[in-house]
């Protein structure tokens, strides 16, 4: 089935949820789950795998999203490691970089969505 704006909306919700989960780990509200940083188990990663790739697997944006998402996940993992070592403020300051990755992914999603709408 072709991707609709509803699908992209889902991706955005999943992205915000990832950031919120990471932030809650860095504020000691929640323990980190290993699946949070796994491309295969991360909700956005799963969405890429099951919804996007079958429909738009050939698009360069899809590969780029996967690459940036992988970077965002490993950065998130580093921040949690830093937090558990007691570098509380430093790890929180790192959320800035997560935002940069997330904005990049958002730009790519937007481009994909525009392409889908135009097709």
């Amino acid at each position, binding site marked *: *089935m072709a991707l609709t704006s*509803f*699908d992209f*909306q*889902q991706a955005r*919700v*999943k992205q*915000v*949820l990832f950031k*919120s*989960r990471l*932030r*809650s780990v860095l*504020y*000691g*509200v*929640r323990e980190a789950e290993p699946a949070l940083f796994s491309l295969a188990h991360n*909700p956005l990663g799963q969405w890429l795998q099951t919804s996007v790739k079958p429909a738009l697997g050939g698009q360069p944006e899809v590969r780029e999203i996967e690459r940036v998402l992988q970077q965002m996940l490993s950065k998130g993992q580093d921040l949690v490691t830093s937090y558990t070592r*007691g*570098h*509380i*403020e430093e790890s929180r300051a790192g959320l800035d970089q997560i935002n940069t990755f997330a904005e990049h992914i958002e730009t790519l999603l937007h481009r994909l969505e525009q392409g889908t709408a135009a097709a």
Partner: protein
Amino acid sequence: MAQPPGSPAAVPYFYSSSGFANRQPAFMPAPPASDSPVDYQRLFRSLPDNFLLMKHDATIVDNTDGHVAVSLKSREEAVGRTLFEAYPSTDQNQGDIIAASHEHVRQHLEPHAMPVIRYDLARPAEQGGGFEEMYWQATHYPLLDEQGQLEYILQRTQNITEQYRAAQEAARAQVALAESQDRIRFVLENLPVLIWTATAGGDRDFFNSRWLAFTGRTAEEQMGEQWSTSIHPDDRERVLASWKKSVASGELYQVEYRLRRHDGQYRWILVRATPRRDAQGTINLWVGGATDIHEQRQMVQELLSANETQAVLAEQAYQLYQKAENQRETFQSLLLQAPAMICILRGAEHRYEFVNPNYQQLFPHRELLGHTVEEVLPEVKDQGIIGILDKVYQTGETFHGDEMKMQLERDASKALKDSYFNFVYQQFRENDEPAGIMVFAFEVTEFVHARQALERLDNAPGN
């Protein structure tokens, strides 16, 4: 500045900054007197200091050369007169101070120092001219006779510029230090942060008033390790272990824990402390700051809950959407394949939204979708069809057409053909409002023609 009585006057060659001792007239021993090998009067006058000797009533008896030099008045002009006559005061107050000092000496037979006065001496032209700021102090000493009665008052005037300046400097430094300490204290007390300091050994030795106000404890109740009694019991062990580790290693101390507020509520705080090191690198102080992050933490928690709920709802909505989409596709394919002519007209203008292939076959040469009935089937207007559609749309009453005749252009020939249909015009509603009409039709032209042919046969003459 006017010259105060009894004080030195400007004699630059004598009191210049090059120093007192160097300019002191050399001591020249007098020829021995009959009963003494020393000329004491000459010795007195040559003393390297500014002395003025008076009787108890202030009548001047003698003075040293130093005094002559700084007072700018010859000995002859002074001796025999009172101090007040020889060196008139610039004002009554000055005179009163001297008289009071004399009186003190007379009464108590003890030395009396007068307040320090400023009296600037002219600087020699070769040193730049002008005046040099100088400070002086005069002291009156009692000299007693053999019966212990006051015989003379000895005035000694000292140049205390150096000491005075040093004292002034020390006072200024003290004020600056006090100001600096006051400033630091003000900053510590008024920053919106809970602040403490600890010794190198890890004992807390200062808490700012915000900390004390927050915990509702006195400084004495928090000193040393007592502060840890305000930590939430579940966090205490972890916090103390972390603090001890930092004290031992000198690493930055960073920890989050719940601190009991004065009202008994535990609040999450973030604490950060840095060691201060001396020139040798040895830690001599820890300074720590804590901020209340309770609300922030709560907000993170609430946002997470909201985002998780939203994700679940979005997932459900997405599932429903996919289900609806699948159903829509199913119904659409049923309608497309149905062995009847079906179309959906949307809105009061009856715009084609859906047309199945059977319906489209009626008008193979016309583009129906997206156009209104009136636009693409202009021939039906005069046949009352638009009126029927309008009525169905407005009233919601279903219209059943039974072998209804229409004249339609069914190819691009411009010729109208009689066509008969059994059909239904049925209003459909959305959000409780009329939304359009569904048309469901069978063409019965051949059937009608056959029946008409039969009827003609039946009615034919001879039957």
